[in-house]
């Protein structure tokens, strides 16, 4: 049989790449009921963590909670396999509290692999895909029909999700030495970029990097600061009930002038500086040599030594990403307290790779010009496991919605960090690997990690990704919260010696007018547990009417939700108002076939940008740089005009 004619299988959805985006995309599509193929370069490297061992942190932890609320896997998987948990930003407001965990990398991979392999409707195969199969579709769009494997066979499908990470024309750089390859000594995918170009896809070249791994037995721990995990066990997933976990510490140490001198003296050998690296790297994750150049006045830079797992001596040197030649890497590491005798087990390296310009995508992550072709993850120009996974689940859901002929799921900026992430990517594009940050979210107080389920689980249920067990748990939690809030509002305390005694015992201070428990919960430091104590004392003293309702018993999470809702009510209401104002523009959808040449009075720059980005709504149009408020008004009027015209035609 000649090459390219053997059809080895037919699927609804094929996912190319089994990293963090690919796994979520494949699991989502399969769980919704689509026959799905997950294609990986290596069965041994599913859900590989080629960079740091950590999951979560500010904004990233929020993404994990959100994708969990939708029915994704990353949170569950991290809860099962992480060996240190810390809640960050606890000194700040609840909106920026962020859970960060250290994974046992291998355990994380194997657990995810096991889940994928055992999910109904999902096949996992080690194949390297070289080409996309397309055919012409209506309105000058193309549509996908399948993929070609390097060994010649074909898999057909109606939807394809590309989640190719850093593998497209991957190139590894260590000092003067470069070679083609993926992360951690893997193969690169060298042909697929060409196939994308032929399909009319615009590519960009990005760069990222990773530090060396050193042998845990060769470190001097006395010279470093211990960074233990939290004592209280926490979980990413709303479905996890893990309450105890053995915690493994990290270690903190610092660079010094000797480190910096070695780096400065060898700057002419830095691939970043001497032109070997051409790709654009991220600002938030700069190589140590870049830090030295950009912040010459900084006397020291901190680094963390993080265990890569329970069954390895490899320690990740967080903060020391580098692509310096080996002699320089070893020399500068040895200047650092605690690392004087460190044995390097793996070198730090930089990797360059092809990714797509994400403004070619719709908010569903489907290519505007290729029906059925989706893209998610690092190949969309992002960085980070969490960002990748968040896109993966959305691409998987929307591929499934396309197969089923149902409404796609697009999250608003006011609904989740996932919405912010994807809206930023498809509206503004990115000029460097994009990292999620809380400061990118304009409605941060609404997008808390504690209420991710309230925001997104109903949407996950709608698309068929939220299991009955999760749905039941969710609805009962919401009901408890509603009951508690209702009861707090219904219980009024009348000033009197006994009432004030109870209040003083809770540390709340006297009342002088009739006050609801709800209002008392606004006082600084007020907790639901104390509200119950006050109420019990008042009832024991018989100073509340017998008809007053019961205060339901709540779990810690439920109580926290109640406390936040009351304490920050004013701020939350203010943000909701802002959302409402924005929503009116978001709900004005622009027709997919709108011809901006036909819209009078637009400025030329706006016309060009709009035609290029093709925003989904007037609200999105307004966020495109180069589109002014006046252009937005013009669009609104134009839409109204069209509506009336079509009404008149009927």
């Amino acid at each position, binding site marked *: 049989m000649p090459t390219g004619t053997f059809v080895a299988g037919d699927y609804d959805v094929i996912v190319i790449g089994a990293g963090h985006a690919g796994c979520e995309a494949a699991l989502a599509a399969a769980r919704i009921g689509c026959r799905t193929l997950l294609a990986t370069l290596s069965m041994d490297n599913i859900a590989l963590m080629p*960079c*740091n061992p950590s999951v979560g*942190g*500010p*904004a990233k932890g929020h993404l994990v909670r959100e994708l969990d609320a939708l029915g994704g896997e990353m949170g569950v998987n991290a809860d099962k396999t992480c060996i240190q948990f810390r809640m*960050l*930003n606890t*000194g*700040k*407001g609840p*909106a*920026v509290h*962020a859970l*960060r965990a250290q994974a046992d990398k291998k355990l994380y991979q194997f657990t995810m692999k096991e889940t994928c392999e055992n999910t109904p409707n999902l096949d996992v195969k080690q194949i390297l895909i070289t080409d996309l199969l397309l055919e012409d579709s209506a309105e000058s769009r193309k549509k996908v029909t399948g993929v070609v494997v390097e060994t010649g066979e074909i898999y057909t499908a109606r939807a394809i999700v590309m989640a190719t990470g850093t593998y497209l024309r991957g190139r590894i750089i260590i000092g003067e030495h470069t070679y083609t390859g993926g992360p951690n000594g893997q193969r690169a995918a060298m042909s697929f970029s060409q196939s994308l170009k032929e399909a009319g896809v615009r590519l960009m070249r990005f760069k990222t990097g990773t*530090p060396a791994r050193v042998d845990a037995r060769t470190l001097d721990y006395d010279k470093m600061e211990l960074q233990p995990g939290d004592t209280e066990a926490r979980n990413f997933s709303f479905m996890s009930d893990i309450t105890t976990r053995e915690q493994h510490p990290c270690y903190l140490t610092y660079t010094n002038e000797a480190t910096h001198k070695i780096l400065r003296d060898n700057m002419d050998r830095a691939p970043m500086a001497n032109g070997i690296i051409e790709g654009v790297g991220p*600002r*938030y*994750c*700069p190589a140590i040599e870049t*830090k030295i150049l*950009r*912040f010459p006045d*900084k006397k020291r*830079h*901190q680094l*963390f030594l993080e265990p890569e797992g329970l069954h390895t001596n490899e320690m990740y040197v*967080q*903060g020391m*990403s580098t692509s310096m030649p080996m002699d320089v890497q070893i020399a500068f590491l040895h200047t650092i307290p605690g690392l004087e005798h460190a044995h390097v087990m793996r070198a730090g390296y930089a990797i360059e790779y092809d990714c797509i310009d994400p403004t070619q995508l719709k908010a569903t992550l489907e290519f505007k010009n290729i029906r059925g072709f989706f893209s998610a993850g690092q190949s969309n120009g992002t960085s980070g496991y969490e960002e990748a996974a968040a896109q993966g689940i959305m691409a998987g859901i929307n591929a499934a919605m396309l197969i089923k002929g149902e409404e796609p799921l697009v999250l608003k900026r006011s609904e989740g960090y996932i919405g912010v992430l994807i809206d930023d990517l498809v509206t503004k594009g990115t000029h460097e690997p994009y990292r999620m*940050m*809380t*400061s*990118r979210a304009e409605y*941060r*107080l609404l997008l808390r990690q504690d209420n991710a389920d309230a925001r997104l689980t109903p949407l996950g249920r709608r698309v068929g990704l939220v299991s009955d067990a999760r749905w039941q748990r969710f609805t009962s939690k919401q009901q408890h919260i509603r009951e508690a809030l209702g009861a707090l509002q219904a219980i009024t305390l009348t000033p009197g010696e006994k009432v004030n005694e109870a209040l003083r015992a809770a540390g709340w201070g006297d009342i002088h007018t009739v006050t609801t428990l709800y209002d008392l919960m606004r006082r*600084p430091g007020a907790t639901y547990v104390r509200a119950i104590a006050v109420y019990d004392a008042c009832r024991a003293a018989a100073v509340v009417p017998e008809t007053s309702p019961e205060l339901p018993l709540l779990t810690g999470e439920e109580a926290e939700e109640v406390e936040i809702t009351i*304490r*920050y009510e004013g*701020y939350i209401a203010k943000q909701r*108002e802002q959302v409402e*104002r924005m929503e*009116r523009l978001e709900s*004005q959808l622009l027709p997919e076939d709108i011809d901006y040449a036909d819209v*009078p*009075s637009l400025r030329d720059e706006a016309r060009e940008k709009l035609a290029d980005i093709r925003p989904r709504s007037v609200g999105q149009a307004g966020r495109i*740089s180069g589109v*002014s*408020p*006046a252009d937005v*008004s*013009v669009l*609104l*009027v*134009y839409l*109204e*005009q069209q*509506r*009336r*015209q079509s009404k*008149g035609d009927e």
Partner: protein
Amino acid sequence: MQQGDTIAAIATPPGEGGIGIVRLSGRTALEVAERVFCAASGRELASYDNYRAVYGHIVTEAGETIDEALALIMRAPHSYTCEDVVELQCHGGPMPLRRTLGLCLAAGARMAESGEFTKRAFLNGRLDLAQAASVMDVISARTNRALRLASGHLAGHFSERIRGLRGRLLEQISHIEATIDFPEDGVEDVVEDELRQTLAAVRQEIAAMLATAHTGRILREGLETAIIGRPNVGKSSLLNALLREERAIVTDIPGTTRDAIAEYADVSGVPLHIIDTAGIRETDDVVERLGVERSRAAAEQAALVLALFDGSSPLTAEDSTIMELAARAGQNVILLLTKADLPAVTTPDDLRRALADTVQMDDAADGASAPAIIRISTAADTGLDELAAAIKDIAYTGAAEGAEDYFVSDERQAAILRAADRELAAAEDTLVQGIGLDFVSIDIRSGWESLGELIGETIGDDIIDDIFSRFCIGK
């Protein structure tokens, strides 16, 4: 039908017509109106039916009556915007109108953005097809005009000032944000004392700018201007020439007002409130004695005196009286030699000497700088640009006490500054309550964004760019 937050604006063009309308639209339009309007019947506005015009007064919180007014109530969806709308029709000219608007803003309305009423009307499906097409042109035209205005005389210093304030706020925001987004990257802690100081300093500067909104009310409420001169010197022609620039002439509509209405001219962006225009017209041809008397009264009231002398004839005794009025007044004076198209008989030097004599005689030489002397001809259209420039000089430098190099020139700017100040006050308050720097950051960011509206700077990735340029962050 959705109702937005409540917006307010003056719905009639400045200086046009004897009635001015402040329009409110949105969810709380009635509540806001209730707080600034007192029906003569003593009843609440809410108790009236749709489309009823209710007679009453605009009253401040302190009980001061600003104006006599009619309130017209149009409930959703039976209004222009399809929202609850209240129109307050005022009678008393530009100043009470602006104060009425100010009261509405203080009572919870927000200053409408340019074209926002129309935009809401569209969003709620109010306008028909033909209207829609024409409004699109208006929107783009309006924007161009706004752009022109923004790049005008005020833009330079004012924007620089605002940019400075925003820069200081941005520094604080990105520091806080860096500590939030990169808690493990060794970003040094935000020093709350420094933050407090920055907030206080910025608020102080905003207050100073807002103060120019009062002391420099020239720009908002007009420069009280007297046009004086003996009969036939050309007062009436000058008045007409000044008013022509504005195109709109305020007329006294019978039955709508009690007092004589001043004429209101816009000279290169400086509003002139010209005193006793009726007197100018009458005295320019007839009763002589009355003419001087009226000039005297006008000059006493004025902040700017335009003293006219006939350049085509010798100075007379009456001119000396006029010169005395000009010299004595101690305000800003511009001496005008009219009829410059005719052969010159009186020269600028003659005027200077006459002025010097008068000042000596008066013994009132207090070192004030010499007034500008300009030759004009309304017939040949010469000298008017020079006059406009001289008026601008006075408005923007000399006259406005307390103003430095910037002015808060309209109610919109003042409203935005007040909003920014409120946000920063909230930030201070949040800081005191100690509920978390991320909340403080949100408040400061709102203030920073408000200030951005003043200079048309859009919200972008500034904060994130600033974080990365200032803090060394990375794994």
